[in-house]
């Protein structure tokens, strides 16, 4: 038989290294199960609740290691492969361990025009990492994000799939990082409608701790 150069076949890479979540911790509590049952009851089939339950697992375990995806699949009685396919499709599900605080810096076109990349590069320099990486102390991850729907208050970022930080400046980033090092997540910030400023003299909501206004965007230094 003709002897071709034989590319060695490599076994399936070990994508199940030592489980990150210990076996004893790999479960949903009774309360969580009750919550899941409520979610499931809202859809014609349990599959509809899979995104919510993946969110729950991510909040519980910090990210979605394979065993957590498996747990979600088992809980909802769905094929594991299907849940894994879903988990890898969406960008907000973390498939690997990230920093305690993940900065999603929007650089999509409105933010790009208004200095989104300046802010991203400032963060990179400040934390001495590249976008996509995590600091050595495991505290911060910096990511470049697509449009987060806050184009009027550009540049902006989102902290760990949670609060938005609007109208970013270098000072604001410094303060944010200092606060996060102390463990203080930024609070919800309400952006005042320009017409409200004229007609109501400020933000219409009296129940929010922090407000900001749409301001003249900064001049971007780098656009790429």
């Amino acid at each position, binding site marked *: *038989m*003709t002897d*071709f*150069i*034989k*590319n*060695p*076949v*490599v*076994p*399936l*890479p070990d*994508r*199940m290294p030592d489980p990150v979540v210990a076996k004893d911790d790999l479960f949903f509590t009774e309360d969580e199960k009750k919550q899941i049952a409520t979610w499931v009851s809202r859809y014609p089939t349990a599959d509809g609740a899979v995104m919510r339950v993946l969110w729950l697992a991510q909040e519980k375990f910090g990210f979605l290691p*394979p065993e957590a*995806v*498996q747990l979600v699949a088992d809980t909802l009685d769905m*094929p*594991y*492969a*299907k*849940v*894994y*396919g879903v988990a*890898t*499709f969406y*960008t907000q599900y973390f498939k690997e361990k990230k920093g305690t605080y993940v900065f999603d810096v929007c650089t999509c076109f409105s933010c790009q025009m208004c200095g989104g990349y300046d802010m991203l590069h400032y963060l990179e320099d400040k934390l001495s990492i590249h976008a996509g990486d995590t600091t050595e102390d495991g505290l911060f991850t910096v990511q470049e994000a697509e449009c987060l729907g806050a184009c009027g208050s550009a540049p902006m970022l989102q902290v760990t799939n949670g609060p938005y930080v609007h109208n970013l400046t270098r000072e604001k980033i410094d303060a944010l990082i200092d606060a996060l090092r102390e463990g203080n997540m930024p609070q919800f910030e309400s952006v005042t409608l320009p017409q409200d400023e004229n007609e109501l003299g400020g933000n219409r909501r009296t129940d929010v701790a922090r407000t900001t206004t749409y301001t003249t965007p900064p001049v971007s230094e780098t656009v790429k």
Partner: protein
Amino acid sequence: MPKITIDNRTIEVEDGVTLLQSCLDEDLEIPHFCYHPAMTAPANCRQCLVEVGMPRVDRETRERVMDEDGNPVIDFMPKLQTSCSMKVADGMVVRSHRTSELVKRAQKDNLEFLLINHPLDCPICDQAGNCPLQNQTYKYGPEGSRFEFRKVAKPKNIELGPRVVLDGERCINCTRCTRFTQEISGSHQLTIIERGVRNYPMTPPGVVFDEPYSMNVIDICPVGALTSKDHRFKARIWEMSQTPSISTTNAKGSNCVYHVKDNLVLNITTRTNMGVNEFWLADEDRLDYKKFNENRPDGPTVRGQARDWDAAWTEAATLLSGVDGARIQFLGSAHATTEDNYLLSRLAAHVGADTPSYIPHIEEGHGDGWLRTDDRAPNSQGCERLGFFPVDADVLKSRLSAGEIDVLYVMEDDPVGTGVCALSDLEGVKIILHHYHSTNATLPAASVALPAAMAVETVGTFVNCDGHAQRLRPAKAIRGVNRTLAMEVGKSRADLHGTPFDRWYTESNMVDCEPGWVSIPAIAERVGLNLSYKGPRAIMAELSDSNPAFQGATYDAMGEWGFRLDVVGQSEPHPQTA
């Protein structure tokens, strides 16, 4: 039945089918990758685009609007449509690449896109020569590529499971494989992961793609992304001749193609038969080819000594004629063809012996209700329909120990190896053995050992568990039969490639064996029974005439797709074995 017009040709098509399928049914090629008739159509490869128009209907009268020449006015849809997702409708007018420059251009554009991230490593790809992407690119694709960037890197040469190897870069994301595990086999072991240009099929972490039907994804993969770990780099497709036949691993009789080079079976792939296995073939059927190549005997032996065929047949005849028929036990075989078993029963009747029994090969729990059965032999039904009963090992053993059997005639099976009896039980018994392998455990006790042709070397009929009679076709040559001279053999050898690479005429890998329909008449002749037929075709013709259990099952009736026999009732328990 709706009438549609494709490229100025009007045809009648079945209602409710897709446009692509009706074109394929009419042998009108429309290039495509993701569509598979057994699965849902996601229309994601975008290769089967065509122009589709419908007759204009007057809003008020609900009648078709005619032009000056009396032909219906056709309104074409503004966008090209995927023919795989488009249902046919009466009056539909279709322009394919044969008549539309627009469609031609679209197909070319699409192939350019498909190829930009495809590695184009056809020279080292197992799929080359049998690759829809390669074929369609040659036919419809662009001459070169305008892509001047680094291709997307994905995992290569990854073992997805014990039998399937993945090359992520070759994948064109048609999702046939994942749909197979979701919709056909139901194993749900594969999914597309990631998003956009980075996505490819994969198992979730910790899962091995090991379902018993995993290798079907190799067949349906339209590129070389999924290849057989076993067959990798063994032979190019065009170096092997391909013979349509049936598999022998179990009683389902799934249709398959034997790939043979130099009289060695190198691969087994599926063959579509909607009446039996549809498009699919179990992994065990595919990997079961080594038995045709390895441990094959080299000519007949008498008491361990190599002899020529004439001497061996004469010796067998001598053994049979010297004994009272009641003291001869015939064992037919669920591995042998119906024709050979029939000849054996004729021989048994002639020497005054009982109807042969056969050794059942049942493995409880192996079957899955789909293409694998508990019965691990291909022709138990054929034996049953001939009136053979499964041998009862206890009865046989007690008869042997009581000295009631002088001669044991075993057709193409292995009583010792299967545990029906032990070598020690056979002391003092004369044994005539037709055998496939030199490892046959009964062989040491055999007085006359006659190497037999296996399913890939003979002509004959197997009846599957559902009563479907199907023909075997010889895929490789043996020393005993000159393939080009024996009419049946020569005609049935339907090489798809007619490849000059398969040197079947060289002696090197030819096994020195004889099919049952040669050996048994030769022995019969020597005991005074004329069993000479013009080959197995004539045997089956006689059987289909004379035995109601085989009514109508002539070779012509069986043809390519087999013949469904009438159901026969459960027969009475055998007086001897009960």
